[in-house]
């Protein structure tokens, strides 16, 4: 299966899972909503240019927004993490030529520890920005803080469950 086709199928699958399964769950303790959809952005191939990353992030967020009737909310936070993603990968991945040898970020291509840091940092940024935009419209500071941390925890848990359920074996590619 080509990379493009795989990512198009993932696009639809993540949107449908988020809209029709996770968004139907009543918020835990009144305010924690489970977010998994932005894993799509974390899994985009290494080889994508920065511009196309931001653009895909915007498009992906906007698609979800049209389902939840909040145009711009998820699009803003998705394009933010898509923009920050290359910086983080550069910091976390130290060995040479990594981006050429593997296609996409995964525990098997990055190693578990860098991958967990990668997921934690980006999901924290995503949730903080998302809840911040919501907070501008209503809520108080403790609500904001509590929601950011608890939502990040739930997102991290969901991503790790997904990662172990659908284990992605990354092949080491060489030029020879």
């Amino acid at each position: 299966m080509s990379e493009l086709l795989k990512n198009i199928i993932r696009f639809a699958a993540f949107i449908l899972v988020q809209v029709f399964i996770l968004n139907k769950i009543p918020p835990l303790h009144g305010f924690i909503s489970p977010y998994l959809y932005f894993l799509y952005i974390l899994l985009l191939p290494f080889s994508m240019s920065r511009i196309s990353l931001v653009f895909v992030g915007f498009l992906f967020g906007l698609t979800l927004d049209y389902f939840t009737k909040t145009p711009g909310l998820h699009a803003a936070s998705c394009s933010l993490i898509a923009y920050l993603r290359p910086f983080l990968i550069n910091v976390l991945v130290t060995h040479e030529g990594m981006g050429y040898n593997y296609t996409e970020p995964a525990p098997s291509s990055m190693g578990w520890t860098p991958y967990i840091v990668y997921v934690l940092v980006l999901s924290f940024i995503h949730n903080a920005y998302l809840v911040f935009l919501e907070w501008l419209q209503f809520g108080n500071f403790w609500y904001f803080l509590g929601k950011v941390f608890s939502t990040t925890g739930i997102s991290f848990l969901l991503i790790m469950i997904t990662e172990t359920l659908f284990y992605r074996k990354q092949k080491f590619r060489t030029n020879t």
Partner: protein
Amino acid sequence: MRNIFLFIRRYFNFVFFVIIQIVALSMLFKYNRFHEAAFMGVAGEFTGRISEKYNKVEYYFQLKKTNEALVNENAHLRNLLKQDFLPSDSTQKIVIDSIRIDSLERFRRYLYMPAKVVNNSVTSQTNYITISRGLKQGVQKDMTVVSSEGIVGTVINVSNNMATVMSLLNRQSRVSSSLKKTGETGTVEWDGNDPQVLTLRNIPKSARVNIGDTVVSGINSSYPPGQAVGYVTAVEAEKSSNFYSLSLKPATNFFNIQFVYVVKNLQKEEQDALEKATHKQDLQ
């Protein structure tokens, strides 16, 4: 000049990112105020279709409850039938007034149009309902939506075959309502926490309120007056003001709503035009 171009070329990634952010945020803030966004009509049609497919499965599991609600409504309507009532004294002659009553088309004020709910949420803080009836079937923006049990919300977006409704369970929803027994008028809001609890504000402390009282839509709301909004579950006196803040249980069960009625106010244009003209006169 050349330096500016060089600067833009060097930081093109960042500039592009900032532009995308500005587009997203302006969409968000514009939508929060006016409920309008680019491509919302087309996207609503598309997401509505997908939700319709999903609802076909979901609907099956709620058939029993939907059936019960419809039977209750039928019973209620049957109890209103004219032939079920007898005059108390049969020796008197019944005089039928020659004034045309409102069953005639010309005096009708509200027209009810049934619609199927295809998507519904209760878990977010801004909940919307999608119904499969749109512009082509006579739904317009700002029409109100009621269910067999009570009021539901207001139409905020319409496409050709779909419409989205802002439900009572939305932080931006405000409904003018009054106590059924004594008639004091206040505003019903939702605080975004518990979908089982609405809040009714601005009821003066002089009002007599008991737990279990019915709250109905008021005469200055856009809903047909007298539709159930909720039932009082707790009475709390605001310490710093002269008003009560009442907790209500919504009359409509938003968890398994499947059929609603879109209400068209046939005199709305006339009323709006008159009120606008009066307001203009005031300003002069």
